[in-house]
C-alpha cells in the first residue's frame, strides 16, 4: 500500500498507507465481507491520495520540492527509459494516473479498478485509454 500510494503520487506515501489501515481497523465491524478488506484499503489509499492532491495545496508544493530531490536519486537507480515513463506518468491527471497504476502495476481488472476509484468500469476504460495515449504522446521521440 505504501508503494501504491507512492506510485499514485502521494507526497507522504507511508502516512497514506497507515491511515488507510487505520480506517480499516475503525471500520472493521461494518465490513461484512472479509474479502472486501483488501479492496477497501486500496480504495482508501486512492481516496486519500486524491484528497491530498485536491485540498492540500501546501503539501503539493512541498511534494514538488521533494520530487526534485528524489528525482536525482532515482535518476541513478531507475533506467533512463523507466525514469522517462515515470516522469510522464507524474504529469497525468490524478484519476488517469490512478487508473494506469492500478491497471499496469497491480494488474487489476476494470471492475476492481472501478471499485477502488469509485467510478464506473466504463470510466476506467476511458481513463486507461486516455492515459496510455497521453503517455505515448509524451514519450514520443524518446523511444
Amino acid at each position, binding site marked *: 500500500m505504501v508503494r501504491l500510494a*507512492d506510485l499514485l503520487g502521494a507526497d507522504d506515501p507511508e502516512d497514506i498507507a497507515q491511515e488507510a489501515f487505520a480506517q480499516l*481497523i475503525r471500520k472493521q465491524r461494518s465490513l461484512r465481507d*472479509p474479502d472486501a478488506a483488501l479492496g477497501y484499503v486500496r480504495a482508501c489509499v486512492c481516496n486519500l491520495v486524491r484528497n491530498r492532491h485536491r485540498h492540500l495545496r501546501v503539501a503539493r508544493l512541498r511534494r514538488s520540492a521533494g520530487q526534485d530531490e528524489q528525482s536525482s536519486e532515482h535518476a541513478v537507480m531507475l533506467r533512463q527509459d523507466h525514469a522517462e515513463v515515470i516522469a510522464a506518468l507524474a504529469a497525468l491527471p490524478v484519476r488517469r494516473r490512478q487508473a494506469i497504476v492500478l491497471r499496469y502495476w497491480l494488474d487489476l481488472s476494470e471492475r476492481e479498478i472501478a471499485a477502488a476509484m469509485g467510478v464506473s468500469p466504463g470510466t476506467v476504460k476511458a481513463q486507461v485509454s486516455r492515459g*496510455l495515449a497521453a503517455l505515448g504522446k509524451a514519450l514520443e521521440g524518446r523511444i
Partner: protein
Amino acid sequence: MNTLEDRVRQALAQRAEHSPISTSAWDRALARSGRPLAPRLSWPRRLPAGLLIPAAAAVAVVAVVLASLALASRAPGADMGTSPASGSSGPVPARVLRSKPAFTAIIPVTAGSATIYFWYTDRKNPQLCTFVKPAAAAGRLASCAFLRVAPGQPIAFQVDRFGSLYYGVATARFISVSVLLAKSGKTIPGRVVSGRGFPDRAWAVADPGTASGWLVFRNATGHEVMVSYEAGPAPRRR
C-alpha cells in the same frame, strides 16, 4: 521492441522497488489523527492473505493495549512499587493492576531507552498511573499521582523515579512534544498519546540530562508552547 504497456509495467515495477518506507510513519499517523486507535476486543474475521503482513503491523500497535486491558479486568488486591522483571504476567504486572485497576486503556510510550505505560485509576478522582520499564534496569517502577492540567495551564509534568523520563499530561489540543536543549539547540522528540477514557492527553520524552532547556508542545496547526525545565528530579505532585 517493447510495447508502451510493457514499458509502463516495467517502469512501475522498478519504481515501486525504491518506494520509501519510514519506520516512524505509524507514529506520525497517530499523532495527526489526534487519537490512538480504539482497541477492539475481537478481530472478527479472516483477512485476505495479501493483507496479513501490513495488517499485522498495524494491529501490533494495539496488541499491547489489548493484553494490558485483559490484565486490568482482574480483581483488586496487592500494593504497588518496585516489581522485579521476572514473574510479571505482561508489560504491566497483574498485581500492579489489581492494586490500581485501570478504567481507561493502557497506553505504552517509548522514550529513549525506557517504555512508560499510562493509564488512569479511580474513576471518581482520576489518578494518572505510570509503569516504567527501563531497558537497562533490574526492576520496574509503578506509581500513581493526581496529575492534572491546572486551569489556564497547558501541561503538568514530573520526572519518573529513575530520572530517565519527563512525563505528564497536556490539554487535548497538543499533538506532539519534544525537548529543545538550550545549549546545543538539539531537539529530542517525545510522544503525546491519548487513550479511551483519558481525561487529558499523556506525554513522555527522554530526560536529556542537561542543565536547562524547554519542553516544546505543538498543536495541530503547528502553534508551539514552550515550558522551561530544570535538570534533576522535579517536585512530585502527590
